[in-house]
Structures are given as C-alpha cells and as structure tokens.
C-alpha cells in the first residue's frame, strides 16, 4: 500500500538539498521583483509633519525616493515684506513652532546688527534670552525624542517626555503670556522681566525633567526593539555633512562638531561651560544620543545662567528702537508721538544687508535681512536648518526598508513650519 503511493509520487521532482537544486530556492525565479510606487503622506500616522515621500519600492526595499515639501507654506517672506520690523516676531514664532524663543532671539539679533546696537543690549536681557532659548531647545529635543519613540511603539516614553515639555512650556507661558507662540523677544531686549520666583521654579522643573529623562533613558537606550530600528539605520557620512549644509544634531551625529554657540559665540554663550556631543557613525541612534546629551548640556547652561544673571534693565534705552514706558506714553505728548511712530511706521532700520546666524533647535538658523531704510524689511530670508537636513533624506533612504523611513524621518526632526515657511 505504502509502496504504491510512493510510486505515484515518483515522477514528481523530489526535493534534494544539493547544490544542483539550490536554484529551486532562488526567490527571483518564483517572484519576479517589480518596482512599485508607494506614497507616504502628506497625512500619515507615522509622520509628524505634513510632507509627502514618493518612494519606489521593490518588495520592502526602497529603490528611489522623492521628498515633496511645501504643504505648510505660509508665505513667511512675502508677509514679512509688508510688516514692520517688530511685526515680524509673531511670524518667526511659527517657523520652528516647537522652539519659538530661539527663532525670536535669532531674528532680534539680526535686526540689532543692522541697527548697530548689537553691542549695547543690556546684559540682563542677554542672559534672559539665553535662558528662554535653552528652555526652548530642551523642549524641542524632548518633542523630537518623544514623538519618535512613540512612532516606534514606545508610547510611555512619549508621555514622560511630553509631560516634561509641558512643565517647561508652562514656565514660558508664565514669562511671556503665551504657551506656544511667545513673541517674547523685542528688538533691543525682551518684553518683560522674569516673574518673582520664576528662576527657582525653573530649577525645580529641571530636576523633575531629569527624572523623566532618566525614565525614558531606561526604557529606550538599552531596549532591543528600539536599538534594532535605530542602530546602523539611516547612516550619514561625515564627508557628506558639510556639502549638504547639514547643521545641528544631524551634523553632530556624523562627527562634525559644529555648534554655533561654541564656534561663533553670540549673546553670552562664551561665559558658560558646556560640551558639544558628537556621534561616531551618523546613524539614527547617534542622532538620538546626541539630542539626549544636548538636553543635559542645555540644563548645565541654564543652571549657570540662572546663577550668574545680573540685575539691570531688560530693554535698550534708545528712543529709536524701544517703546517708551506706558506711564510716559499716557502722560507726555513726546512719548505719545514716539509710541505712535514706532507702532505705525516701525523702527527705521538703516539700509544694508546682514546675515546673522544662531544655533536653533535643528541647527544653524540664519536670517538674511535686506533693509532699504524704511520701517519694513525689503527682504527677510530665513535659512531654515531642517530644509537642508531634510534634503539629504533623498540620498539616505534608497537601500533602506519601508519601516526604516519612520525612525529616519523622525530623527531628522523636520518641522513643517520651518521647512516650508
């Protein structure tokens, strides 16, 4: 009975694991690989930004990629050209909307250079700018790390980090009046001093944020699932970094130790002791680790700044730039006229051009301003760091798998408001 059945099978080819039959298992003979277009975005649950990535995939593997941006274009430059120099501040809030203070500071410094008052800003105002800027940078990195961890399934980490960010934003709300779009910095200084007890509350929050970061670190850094998706994925070579215009944590992850705060100190950054962390391989994990360390370095700067901050005025004493005190405005005709002129005509910035750059959340945030001598900018160009950082994805993605797009894109930390302006 059994032998009969076997004779039925005899004409069929029997599988023998020998060299001659290896070709039977070659997948390409069975499954012809055909490339297929795959479009991720502009609305995709795993992409925290309105962006479309047109991929050409072969199976799970990415062959080519074309990144399409512009979904959040809000005509920043065109609007600035019809706003007074001061009215540009609310627009800069909406560039990198995770760290608006850094944009405020960057823009103010550029205009002050055009006005030749950049050396005359009161010291206390400079310290406050450093403090709010570093708080913003911590918030920026917390958002990037939390959101990226969530996209890889680590939802708890997201809550830990976003909770810490919320504490920081509450402090910024206290100092500026707005939770997200602060418009706190003014040309010549800042709009208001730190409220009573703000500094000690900030120190408390930093302590709590350290605990939250420690918890996140325990959940992520040695987590096999997380490491498998981050290690060796999305590698950017150090040689590519400069030519592609990469800056910020993305450039530093490749080993390029370029930090504007260190290489070209502005405000009072040269008075603080802090380190610039760099990566070694330029993969996603390095970008995660660099951001993690930068948070702690920012906290170091904050503690030193709160310790050293001097007393004094917070706005320059210059009638061409600063609004007169409200008391004066309501009681004297001169101050009333000055107020009216500054609001209606704007600050008169002498003709000229300047490129001023600071370290934003994502890298070198540059402002290239052209003034024709009126109260409104002739051109107000932003050099958006994540625009340059994102461009290299077209080179990085081919060869990766579809699932690798999520952590790679997350670690570039593209912010739509800044990239598309």
């Amino acid at each position, binding site marked *: 009975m059994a032998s009969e059945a076997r004779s039925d099978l005899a004409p069929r080819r029997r599988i023998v694991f020998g060299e001659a039959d290896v070709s039977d298992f070659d997948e390409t003979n069975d499954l012809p690989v055909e490339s297929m277009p795959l479009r991720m975005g502009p609305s995709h649950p795993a992409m925290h930004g309105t962006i479309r990535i047109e991929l050409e995939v072969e199976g799970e593997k990415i062959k080519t990629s074309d990144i399409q941006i512009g979904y959040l274009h809000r005509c920043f*430059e065109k609007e600035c050209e019809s706003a007074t120099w001061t009215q540009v501040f609310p627009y800069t809030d909406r560039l990198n909307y995770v760290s608006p203070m850094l944009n405020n500071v960057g823009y103010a410094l550029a205009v002050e250079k055009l006005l030749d008052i950049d050396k005359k800003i009161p010291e206390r105002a400079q310290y406050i700018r450093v403090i709010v800027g570093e708080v913003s940078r911590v918030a920026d990195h917390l958002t990037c790390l939390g959101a990226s961890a969530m996209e890889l399934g680590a939802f708890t980490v997201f809550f830990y980090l976003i909770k810490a960010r919320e504490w920081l934003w509450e402090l910024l709300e206290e100092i500026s009046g707005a939770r997200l779009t602060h418009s706190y910095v003014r040309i010549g200084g800042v709009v208001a001093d730190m409220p009573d007890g703000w500094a000690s509350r900030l120190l408390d929050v930093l302590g709590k944020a350290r605990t939250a970061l420690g918890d996140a670190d325990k959940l992520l850094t040695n987590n096999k699932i997380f490491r498998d998706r981050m290690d060796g994925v999305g590698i950017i070579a150090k040689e590519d970094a400069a030519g592609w215009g990469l800056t910020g944590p993305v450039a530093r992850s490749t080993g390029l130790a370029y930090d504007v705060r260190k290489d070209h100190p502005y405000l009072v950054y040269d008075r603080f002791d802090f380190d610039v962390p760099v990566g070694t391989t330029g993969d996603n994990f390095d970008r995660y680790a660099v951001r993690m360390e930068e948070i702690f370095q920012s906290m170091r700067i904050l503690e030193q700044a709160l310790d050293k901050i001097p007393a004094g005025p917070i706005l320059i004493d210059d009638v061409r730039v600063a609004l007169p005190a409200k008391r004066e405005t309501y009681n004297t005709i001169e101050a009333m006229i000055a107020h009216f002129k500054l609001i209606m005509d704007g600050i008169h910035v002498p003709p000229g051009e300047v490129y001023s750059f600071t370290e934003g959340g994502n890298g070198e945030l540059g402002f290239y301003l052209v003034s024709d001598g009126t109260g409104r900018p002739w051109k107000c160009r932003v050099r958006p760091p994540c625009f340059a950082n994102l461009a290299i994805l077209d080179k990085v993605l081919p060869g990766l798998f579809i699932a690798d797009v999520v952590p790679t894109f997350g670690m570039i930390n593209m912010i739509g408001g800044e990239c598309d302006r």
Partner: protein
Amino acid sequence: MAQIILDMLSERFTAGEIVETGAQHGNEWARVAPPAWLQVAEYLLRAPALLMNMFIDLTCVDRLPREPRFDVVLHLYSIEKKHRVRLLAGLPGTSPSVASVASLWPGANWFEREAFDMYGVVFEGHPDLRRILMYPEFQGYPLRKDYPKEKRQPLVRRLPGSV
C-alpha cells in the same frame, strides 16, 4: 575677519570676474560677474587656504526697479578655517539665469529649486529644476516684487487618477 577671502579672490581673478567687494556688519561679500559664478564658487571650494566646504544658504533678492534686477545670494562657510563669505551675482529682469552650484555642494539642490520657484531664476546645469514649495500648476513667481500679495491663482483641476 575673513578679509583674506576677498584679497585672494581679487588676486586670483583679475579679468573683471569680481565686480566689487566689501564688508558690512561683519559679513564679507563679493559681487561676481554672472558668467564667472561657477568658476569663482569652485575656486572658493578648492583653494587650500579657503576651503569653503560648507554650504549655508542660497537665495535671491528682487531689487526692482534696479537693473540688473535680481541678485542671487550664496552664503558659504569653511569648517576648517571658520570663515564665511557672501557671493552675489546680478541678473537681468528678463529671463534671469546663472550656473548651478549643485555639482559643488549637493545641498544647493533644494535651495536653487526654491529660488527658481519663488523668483523664476533658472539655474543652468541643475539636475532637477522644478518647483519645490509651490505646486506645479502655480502661475508666476510669488516673491517677485511685482507679484501682488493678494493675487489669486486659477483653480487647479486635476484629472482623476493623476498624482
């Protein structure tokens, strides 16, 4: 601080390639004749004493009613030497075009696309010159000074099935 760049440029290029140099607010700048744009950029990248290997920014300024109307503005930085320079090239109001520097700094690719998108400046030799922030059907160049801020665009109808 970066006067050496301007000195070396005027030393190396004597046949009118460098139109004018100067410094303002700590930024050194050089105005380049458009035909020499790529040549000057390549010299800045390769000269051992300059090594402007980091691409920073490329944009355009519309100086209507001046002629040449457009200025293409390129900002470069050197990681090793820690110096910066700004290059400008004046282009005419009708069919402005200049050589692309994307072959020297790959990062210039998207920035040149943006300048093309916003000002209509054509970068010759660019690998993929198409609009980047606006959609392909957009008419006109929005950052030109003669483009009104409130201008409306025609309604775009896309054929079913097109991407």
